[in-house]
């Protein structure tokens, strides 16, 4: 299907494609080597700006092909929450040349050889990945190239997939930790789209139109808004040959939208929320605004989180878990394109003492703000983080998923440079970021409470909205 066919498909506000007519039909697409790091090579496809990452991995006769698009829930407007995720589902319904009607869908061509294919949507990005026998990398690339610009959205498919997504939504909507997490992000980000649920709302999902989804697709699904990653048992030459043949003739887009993020006003006061879920053990979640994923301060906060709540050697494990107030505690540092959240959360013990656990976490943060951390603690945290990075890279999919988040944060080099970046953090940095970011005015506190539990009243006694 040609570009014109898309216009026929009915998207209003059809974007204007870059002119690539000067390129001959048989010309060999030109790649420009940009940089290399950590065994990964970056190229740009001159014709359309597609970024290509290649990594050789010879352990098994397979290849992974992943496309990461710079579109996620952050790029959706009010009343359109969940559109990126909905599109992710519809991308498996077929494209112009690869679809079930012609017997050429992913399910017809890749699954019969045992391929693993899937996709995920998150705040900043959507990624599609295919783990295939090396012999099938070519057809995987051909399918991805076709659905990059030529999606088919059959009205019947849309209605069928809408109810599938609604069921997925309902699963999440009842999950207690998901409810708490979404509630905390929602009140932490009063205006910024990071506060909206990635999967969307039931109302918005029910109201998606074919035209609206097409418009979203045509705004974001372009080669110069994507990174193609190939990891596998093959060489550079073959990889670039495959990529060039399938992606080299499409145009880029000269008016990619900047994410029209709502400005998030500076938080000037603590925010609190209580989420009620019958029959559920309590949770406490503390979250502070944090810098974007590429900031060196994020590295310091990640190590701070490790010292505070990461593993058995952390301060809060000893105080909360060994102390009997909680049965688990852990940190979470979001590494996003825009400022996100630094979170510490605890699953409560039998006493369900929400306030006691919150107080302990706040005291532990205060202690670091005032006294900092020891070099020994920091070294141990670095060792843990470094080791985890190394041992978690088990196979092409695991590597690709980590690389994917670095791409979404804005620089894939954050993946191979992660260990060096963490090594550069000093004890002074840790104390500084604790003082700068982990402050009461930037704090959001969430409780998950069993409304029928004996401790419910005391857990909800602090001023907080309840849902």
């Amino acid at each position, binding site marked *: 299907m040609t570009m014109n066919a898309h216009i026929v498909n009915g998207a209003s506000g059809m974007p204007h494609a870059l002119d690539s007519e000067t390129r001959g039909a048989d010309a060999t697409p030109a790649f420009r080597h940009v940089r290399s790091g950590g065994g990964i090579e970056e190229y740009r496809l001159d014709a359309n700006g597609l970024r290509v990452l290649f990594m050789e991995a010879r352990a098994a006769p397979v290849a992974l092909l992943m496309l990461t698009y710079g579109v996620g829930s952050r790029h959706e407007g009010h009343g359109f929450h969940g559109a990126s995720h909905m599109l992710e589902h519809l991308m498996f319904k077929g494209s112009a040349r690869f679809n079930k009607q012609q017997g050429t869908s992913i399910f017809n061509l890749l699954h019969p*050889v045992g391929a693993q294919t899937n996709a995920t949507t998150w705040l900043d990005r959507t990624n599609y990945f295919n783990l295939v026998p090396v012999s099938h990398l070519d057809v995987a690339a051909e399918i991805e190239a076709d659905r990059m610009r030529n999606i088919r959205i059959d009205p019947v498919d849309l209605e069928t997939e809408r*109810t599938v997504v609604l069921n997925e939504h*309902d699963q999440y909507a009842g999950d*207690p930790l998901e409810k708490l997490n979404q509630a905390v992000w929602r009140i932490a980000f009063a205006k910024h789209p990071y506060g909206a649920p990635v999967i969307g709302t039931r109302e918005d999902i029910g109201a998606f139109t074919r035209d609206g989804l097409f418009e979203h697709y045509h705004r974001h699904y372009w080669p110069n808004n994507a990174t193609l990653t190939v990891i596998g048992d093959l060489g550079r030459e073959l990889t670039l040959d495959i990529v060039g043949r399938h992606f080299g003739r499409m145009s880029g887009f000269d008016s990619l939208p900047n994410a029209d993020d709502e400005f998030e006003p500076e938080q000037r006061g603590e925010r609190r929320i209580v989420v009620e879920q019958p029959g559920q*053990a309590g949770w406490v979640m503390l979250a502070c605004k944090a810098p974007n994923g590429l900031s060196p301060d994020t590295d310091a906060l990640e190590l701070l989180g490790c010292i505070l709540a990461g593993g058995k050697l952390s301060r809060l494990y000893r105080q909360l878990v*060994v102390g009997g107030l909680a049965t688990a505690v852990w940190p979470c540092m979001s590494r996003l394109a825009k400022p996100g959240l630094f979170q510490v959360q605890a699953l409560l013990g039998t006493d369900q003492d929400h306030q006691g656990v919150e107080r302990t976490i706040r005291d532990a943060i205060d202690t670091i703000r005032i006294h900092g951390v020891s070099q020994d603690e920091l070294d141990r945290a670095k060792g843990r983080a470094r080791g985890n990075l190394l041992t978690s890279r088990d196979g092409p*999919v695991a590597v690709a998923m980590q690389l994917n988040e670095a791409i979404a944060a804005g620089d894939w080099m954050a993946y191979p440079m992660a260990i060096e970046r963490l090594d550069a953090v000093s004890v002074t940095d840790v104390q500084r970021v604790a003082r700068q970011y982990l402050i009461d005015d930037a704090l959001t506190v969430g409780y998950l409470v069993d409304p029928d539990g004996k401790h419910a009243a005391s857990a909800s006694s602090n001023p907080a909205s309840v849902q």
Partner: protein
Amino acid sequence: MKPGTGSRKMKECIVDLPLEHGRFHGLHTATPSLFALTGSFRTAPVVQRGELMLQQLVAMLMTCGSRRRDQFEMADLLESRGASLSVESELHRVSFSARACSEDMPLVVDLLSECLREPRFDATDFATERSRLIAELQYRGAEPAAQASDALSRMLYSPRHPRHRAEFADDVSVVERLTVDDVRRYHHAHFGANDLRVVAVGDIDPHAVAAEVDRRLASWSPRAARQVDDTGSSDETVQVAWVQTAGRENFEVALGQRLTIRCDHPDYMALWMANHILGATFTSRLVSSVREEQGLTYSIRSELARPDRDFDGHWQVALSLSVDKLNAGLAATRAEIDRFVDHGVTAQELAAKQLEAIGAFHIGLATLHGLSETILFGTENGWGPDYIREFAGKVGSVSASQLNAVVAEHLRPAELQTIIAGPFADAQREFNACVAA
């Protein structure tokens, strides 16, 4: 990849060595600087004595330090290297696994040996881990998919059977009564090199790992063998049962029926292939029909849960349904199952699905985790390291007529028990009215 291409290469290199009290399988792979080690040994807990919960607690405590070092020293050694070490309770076995940088292999094997042979069982650690287990049970008790699956197990198996899951409140009650002395006694009596299986894969010399394992575990004595033969019988009345889960916004449904074969039965592979076609993959009939064509569910799958050499298992179909799709989703699922059992598969469909299954099997070997677990699965079930090489042949030898005969004999839709876990009493009334109509 042609079927068997990867596995032939692997078979040539898989090292199969005897241990003092078991067997070792190792494989060097081109995975730079990493290795994975996994294994298991037999314990055979007696279910009606609450020993499954006791065994689970013992397993959780295994990595909380040894007589030589407390949990913090052990955590320091592991975490500073990014290494992980875990011990988990299975039904009648205990499994262990580790992942680390290759250079840390001797240390990891040393720590694993300490955990298995001389765990610390400190009173404070005991209290912490017991609380953690109770919290896990409570979380499971509020999770509808787990509730549906557990309730199904209670319909299918007698309380004597290892696959019978008690009500979570009963499990919590059992755990609350356990003492650190119970833990010590159970470990002393049942944790030993009984039918020990160890697998190591990655950037390692398999012979060196085997030597290290045997050096640490050769003097670990087997315990007196126990055999659980009497697993009782269950009520076979076909029922639909409801489990109310407050606060949830969807239903999780489990349909199931007991199987009468184990994994060494001649029909097993044909039954495995039948389940693969029916509901084990994204291109299965259930997914294609109930999700892709009718849009009634986000997740649906069927599984053989999980017949092994010692115990039979059951056939289970699990799906998620939104409130307004409960009746339609269940009807569509049952219709697809009926169609599958009544009409079977064609030779053409089977051939395509055999290639898919073989391809997926080999792609699953692309990680150290997948590779080591698959080798362990083969050796635990008596197929040895040849399992990887022979898988394609085993699957490929199933004929359509054999598969259809096995389906007709073993899958009986009329006997499917149904559990519906969800929050809505109104839906139950509507469902009953629909069934009555």
